[in-house]
């Protein structure tokens, strides 16, 4: 069956089975920026935002979120027009193999929307659902700090 979803602010009709997870549905419909990792809600590679809140798409049945706004990492920035968080990750060496990066970036984005000036502890809690096997997290936490600072500067200049 085909069901209509709002993904990255665009209406899209996606082909799905009623027992399928959001992760499967997104990937088989071409949204491969959503990565498939553990498929049991532990690693955060498949993280997307549902109405702005981070969730593991492998732990969500697609049919249950038909009316919600879904945001993948491409919804906040692209290769040619990256978001400040994505730039901070790239410039700060916060991504190595890059597999966890879409989920990490979205978790950081959601955190900074709620809390523009997080402490180290708050960043750790905000990213507690995302595993990285390369960086050891130090560079990631630094990148989120850096992005937070730049976003605050950007906001104060705009005001």
């Amino acid at each position, binding site marked *: 069956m085909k069901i209509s979803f709002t993904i990255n602010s665009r209406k899209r009709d996606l082909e799905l089975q009623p027992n399928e997870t959001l992760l499967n549905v997104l990937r088989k419909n071409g949204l491969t920026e959503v990565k498939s990792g553990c498929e049991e809600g*532990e690693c*955060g590679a498949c993280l997307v935002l549902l109405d702005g809140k981070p969730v593991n798409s492998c*732990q969500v*049945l697609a049919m249950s979120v038909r009316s919600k706004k879904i945001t993948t990492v491409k919804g906040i920035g692209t290769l040619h027009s990256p978001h400040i968080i994505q730039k901070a990750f790239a410039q700060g060496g916060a991504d190595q193999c890059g597999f966890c990066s879409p989920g990490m970036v979205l978790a950081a984005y959601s955190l900074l929307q709620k809390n523009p000036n997080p402490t180290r502890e708050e960043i750790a*809690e905000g990213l507690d659902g995302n595993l990285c096997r390369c960086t050891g997290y130090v560079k990631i936490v630094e990148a989120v700090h850096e992005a937070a600072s730049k976003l605050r500067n950007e906001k104060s200049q705009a005001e």
Partner: protein
Amino acid sequence: MLPNSIQWYFPTKVKEAAKLIHKDGIILHGGGTKILEPQPRSSVKGLVDISALGLNYIKVTGNIVHIGSGATFADVVAWSRDKKRLTVLSDSLSHAASTPLRNRITIGGSIKDFPMWSNLYAPLLALDAKIDIIGERSGIFSLEEYATSPLIKSKHLVREIRVVEKHDIRSGVKIFHVVRFEYPIFTIAAACTMDKNIVRDARIFVTGVKKKLVRLVTAEKVFRGHSISDELINSAANQVSLTFVPDYKFGAAYKEKVAKVYFKDLLREIKESIR
């Protein structure tokens, strides 16, 4: 794995949802995290999504906090931290699973399912929470009665959890887990109703034990009518007897030893908070 022939239902009224689950093979869908656990689900014929029932609320009437069954762990943590109310719940639930899972795990699903690792039950039981259910048996019950009787296994929908907020209560929680995001091995919560510095009543619960939950009645008695002191805490801890199930990480005896240490730490923290 769910069969691909499952039927979805999207009721907009609680009674409609409660009626649907009387049919064989039809179960409730809150956040869906339990449903997606890897286990055979071939008997499931339908899922009743509860997101349109308007149960994702946290509201206060008088001194009663009403937590709708559709509220997520993240909702409760955010509300509790923001309002600085029932902080024992945010202390406990902020350590449950991870941020993205806390955005999906609902209070109702976690109450109905009562997993061994639950760190929702102990603080709610210590606070003497009530539960409002609709189904084979409907009404408002004490959460303790609900969790320890066949009620929990009956076909029903949890409407809400109610907690009476009292300003003379000192409460706390301790969770034993190896790393922050791992499932808790056990959770201990205590709530002491104080009359100045004298304990008028105490409710202390442990979850994660062999019987899933245990109320430390003997220890509670030790504190009633007395001011909490280190001597009293040690005396109560000596009377605590807990039976755990050994697992690949820890033996039952080790878990009991750690539980006694956590019990003492928890009561010491409550004692300090009274000063």
